């Protein structure tokens, strides 16, 4: 399972903040959306890759994931069964980074919704 506290790559964190400024969607919610989009896209994290969780926004697991916590953990487990908790957290962060790429430039909430609904 994922560790109790998680954080992200610094760049991703900044992107989430920017997006919040534009759409009013909080970073944790945006991160969830980004995660699921990344999962659906079939992105697969390679743990051999050096991935730094350099962000300063350090939240607990429930705040990051909310209602989607269980499904998120199961999806990660299903995709990366052999990963340790810490590795799963990195994978999660990587998925968020992957997913946020397509939505981080949305102007506002409506555009964001439009984007995620049609993608």
């Amino acid at each position, binding site marked *: 399972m994922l560790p109790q506290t998680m954080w992200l790559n610094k760049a991703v964190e900044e992107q989430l903040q920017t997006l919040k400024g534009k759409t009013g969607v*909080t970073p944790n919610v945006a991160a969830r959306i980004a995660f699921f989009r990344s999962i659906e896209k079939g992105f697969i994290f390679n743990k051999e890759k050096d991935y730094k969780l350099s962000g300063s926004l350090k939240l607990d697991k429930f705040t990051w994931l909310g209602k989607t916590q269980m499904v998120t953990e199961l*999806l990660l487990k299903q995709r990366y069964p052999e990963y340790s908790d810490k590795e799963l957290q990195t994978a999660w962060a990587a998925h968020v980074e992957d997913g946020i790429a397509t939505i981080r430039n949305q102007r506002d909430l409506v555009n964001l919704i439009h984007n995620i609904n049609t993608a």
Partner: protein
Amino acid sequence: MIFKTLTLNNFRVFNGQTTIDLDPRKEGMFERPIILFGGLNGAGKTSILTAIRLALLGKRALGAVITKKDYLSYLNEQTNKTATKAQQDAESSITLSFSHTHQGKHNLYEVTRKWQLESDEKLTLTINGEQDTSLNSEQVQAFLHEIVPPGIGDLFFFDGEKIAELAEDDTGSYLKEAVQKLLGIDIINRLSNDLDIYLKGLGAETADKDTLKKIKAAEDQKKQITQQVNTTRDKADSIGAQLTELKNKIAAKEHEIQAQGGAWAKTKDQEQAKASELIELEKELTAKIRQELSGSLPMALAPTAMQSLIEQLTSDQQIKQAKAFGNELVQALPNLESALNQKFDTQSSDIMATVNSYFGQLVNQTALAEPKLDISDSEFALINAQVTEASQSQALIKELSTALTQTQNKLSSLSINIERAPDAADLHELYTSLRELEKQRDTTSKEYISELLKAKEFKAKELELAKRLEKDYSKLKNNHSADKAVERVELSQYVLQDFKHALTELRVTQLEELFVKAYRKLARKEDLKLSAKIDPTSFDVNLVDAEGVIINRKSMSAGEKQIFAFAILEALGKLSGKVLPVVVDTPLGRLDSKHRDKLIKHYFPEASEQVILLSTDTEVDEDFYQAIEHKVSHAFEIEFNQHTNCSTLREGYFWAELAQEAI
């Protein structure tokens, strides 16, 4: 008319008072018309002629056009020099008494003309010994002119030598006045002139004076009012122009206000309220969307992954159930074996083997399988519920998103309107000036209307005046046409004109006949074939010989001319019917003996009831005197005294007295 006496006082050569008896005396039944004056040159014959002419004709004795100043200086010159020597302002006078039938009454008149140095003459008239004081000098003169018209006076009281001018005159001016007067044509002329005056002065003009005056006044008034109408109209026009300008300004102002979003401004508050509503809605929708986003929704974004997860979880679930069944079965199998053993002794092991084989296979199938994702049933149920919720949330979020889009669109269009709408404060100024303009427009409009009304009023007045004028004009016209008198006068004038022509022609013909008669009487034998032709318009008298060729009078000798003139005078005198004395000075000067004879025998005795002859001793010599003696009433001899420079009269003729003395 018969001259009775002539009294001269300090006149020319006659010093003091000299009274001459001119009344022809009768001898039995025989009239003796001739009064003969004898005198040498310079004795004073011409003075007597002058005195008679002056007494009767006054100023006109000198000519047709003489100024008063010239006349007075002439009179002064006529004063006797001896008298003026004695007394500077000696009084001179001429008194002529004569009998005349005037207006049916036979009266004795006495005319006295008095003058002193540098003062007006005084003319007085005495009728039958009584002085008529009601008449002033001019009126007396007018009366005298009536009796002896100036033009005629020249023909009856004349200098025999000068009368030749009459024959030389081919302009007719010499005869014209006299002929017209003598023939009564002047009366027609005067009547015609009077009618003219009546027509011009007293006639139509005075009759319509009031109407004309009215018309003039009305025309003036009309002119004035027309001017007023024009002025008012001009004013109205200029106000109208102002009004149009104001209207344009108002339209421009309204346009400006419109351009500045005047219409939007009115609904601005409403729009703003709506906008805040929409903003609220937007907020709400956004909040809802965010809420949905923060729920299960993200799961819906990965449907394939979720499907595979559910499948995995289901199969894991089945593995877990199978395992649980196996466990249950394993626990239950010993009890089943003992139960079988009791019921089926021999067959129990077979049955047990079959059961074991069946279930063993079943359990073994799942015995090796391990659930990958170990979750509880409730967790699985929760995930299933979450997936359903996610898809529901996705639908909801679609709706919310659409609603949000609409709201935002509305809001943006609304905000455009609001943006367009200027602040009421900004518009206030525009509206104020608009109101000001409208106010001005109303005032101007009122003014305009009042000016138009005024113009209308004036126009009405003008029309009324025009009507009145029309009436007056027609009245004037009526007056003219009604004034039949005018017509009659005009007709009368035509008739008079015709009558004048006819009369003139008739008179001229008569004159011609009388002339020829008179001329033949006076002319020598060789002239007897001559006849006269008088132009009825110019009164030019021409002599025509036997062949009908006009004789040029200029080529006649002075004596012939004189005869010619006497003939005319006689003819005229006879034709006129006027009974005027004839006064002839130097009657025979240029004539040859034959002509003298004729004159003496045929002219003087028959010329008039009274013939005053002023003659020298060479003119009427003894022979002639004898020839006319039986016609001579009495005679005077004028004697000039060289010492006193004065003349005196003495009854008798040069030799007549001598003869008498001799007898």
